[in-house]
């Protein structure tokens, strides 16, 4: 697990929330998430591809999501509506985009259009070969988590190990 791919998400979420909503985010110690743990009630999911592959999930309890969306959009939105999902999707889009810009070594990474899942105790399935780092966060609107399950693309990992073998 490469910490240089995880720590950009910490500064990115703080930047996005403070810039767009003037909402400070306190980031708490990260931990490894087991595949079976449910996320919160509302999750924005984005995929990454290119030099780094995997997925990023921004997950909120329902009431936290409602408060944050209201701050972000300037009006209350009903969960389950397209506009509510759009706001959640845009938040995970900005957090992921801001993080990937900080990845070291000029990695070329593309991010997908976001998906949004609403429902208590949902589990986001991921590739089993990629550990998921869960970063708990606290705000005045409530708690949320960033779940980062990303790794160097297999082709790049192969090139790196091949180069080391040739040099030995």
């Amino acid at each position: 697990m490469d910490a240089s791919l995880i720590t950009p998400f910490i500064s990115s979420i703080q930047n996005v929330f403070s810039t767009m909503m003037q909402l400070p985010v306190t980031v708490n110690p990260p931990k490894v998430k087991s595949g079976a743990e449910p996320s919160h009630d509302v999750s924005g999911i984005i995929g990454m591809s290119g030099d780094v592959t995997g997925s990023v999930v921004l997950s909120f309890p329902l009431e936290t999501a409602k408060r944050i969306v209201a701050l972000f959009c300037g009006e209350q939105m009903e969960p389950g509506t397209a506009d509510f999902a759009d706001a959640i999707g845009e938040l995970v889009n900005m957090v992921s985009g801001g993080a990937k810009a900080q990845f070291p070594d000029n990695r070329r990474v593309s991010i997908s259009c976001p998906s949004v899942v609403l429902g208590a105790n949902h589990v986001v399935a991921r590739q089993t070969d990629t550990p998921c780092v869960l970063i708990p966060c606290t705000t005045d609107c409530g708690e949320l988590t960033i779940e980062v399950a990303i790794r160097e693309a297999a082709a790049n990992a192969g090139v790196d190990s091949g180069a080391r073998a040739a040099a030995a």
Partner: protein
Amino acid sequence: MRIMLIDDSKTMRNIQKSVLTQLGYTEVTEACDGQDALSKVGAFQPELLLVDWNMPNMDGLTFVKTYRQQNKTVPIIMVTTEAEKNRVIDAIKAGVNNYVVKPFTPDLLGQRITETLAKCQPSQHQAAA
């Protein structure tokens, strides 16, 4: 002034529209992706475009390259999460006049719009004359 907002996120279009309203620009139309935008530019004849990058159907970079084949003078501002230097270079090569990285404050977006129009409008007036 006719302004077109091109972003698949209605939330972002609303935020940008609010900034434009504060600046006094109310003749605004919206498109949800590059293809939608191409279908509307002919009839609407925008004088400024704000374009997202990552969109379904047709992304912003492809839209800019396609649009620039028919119009080389209307100013375009890319408003996107793509912040890497190589992306900015790609966008400028495609014909973008200015670049705003999300997240942005309303003040920053307003500044970029004002400075883009100030730089681009004199040449538009010359072209029209």
